[in-house]
């Protein structure tokens, strides 16, 4: 059994209304050191297989087709095979 972590983030240049709101909220709470905040998605996936290269290729397909929207989102992954 392999485990994968998938991180989906908004592409640079795409406005992130949620991130902006959280940034403002943190500042209003006194956390003035916060300069930027972008909200993304984190997924933990358990899957069969032991070949990390194969798993990464398959996960890449999953990200391109469903898990991420390539028009507005980037993704990266960490695989423990």
């Amino acid at each position, binding site marked *: 059994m392999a485990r994968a972590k998938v991180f989906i983030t908004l592409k640079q240049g*795409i406005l992130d*209304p949620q991130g902006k709101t959280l940034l403002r909220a943190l500042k209003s709470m006194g956390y003035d050191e916060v300069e930027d905040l972008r909200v993304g998605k984190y997924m933990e996936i358990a899957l069969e297989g032991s070949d990390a290269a194969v798993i990464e290729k398959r996960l890449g397909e999953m990200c391109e087709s*469903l898990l991420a929207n390539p*028009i507005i989102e980037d993704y990266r992954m960490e695989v423990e095979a």
Partner: protein
Amino acid sequence: MRFGVVVFPGSNCDHDCHYVISTILGQPVDYVWHQSTDVAGFDCLVLPGGFSYGDYLRSGAVARFSPVMKAVEKFAGSGGLVIGICNGFQILLEAGLLPGAMMRNSGLKFICRFVDIRVETTETPWTGDAAVGQVLHIPIAHNEGNYQVPPDELDRMKQSGQIVFRYCSTGGEVVPESNPNGATDNIAGICSRDGNVLGMMPHPERASEDVIGSSDALVIWRSVLGHCGVELPA
């Protein structure tokens, strides 16, 4: 003219669309279940609004892999008329039948109210009976209507007349104040290059009868009927 209203788990404007098509337009209409793989015999498919698959992951992201969507893609690819309303629009974007993507409304709030939109082109099956600059008073009801598209793609869309509706003031001016959700260029509705696929965030099925506040969207239905050689019964 035969209509099909596609029903996904979580669609909630399907009955409204069915009602408008059958009762107000007087046209034959059937529901098409999302498990169906056959859309033969329809002249126009409607992807209604709602919260297909609970809006999980991204609005429309899961619905686009419903069995029926393969048939819808084939239907659209061969020139069939498809209109996606609200969540239906989001599904068309996720399916790649229309360019761009939806983000959360810039104000982070679900917005449910009447807006005004301006007809930008009459060179589509959906607006042939309208006039350029015509203002339609029509409701929106969405949380993800913040339309985004890369600048180069937007230029291509403008050149090929794919921007169909833009949010505007009551007087028809496209200004930032009339943009309810942060959508690029105040875009409320777009079509495919060939014009046969239309996606729009506002709800024409909720603006087709004066008794519920507006019948401005009748021009969209009248246009598409006329495109198929059918006159809207008086």
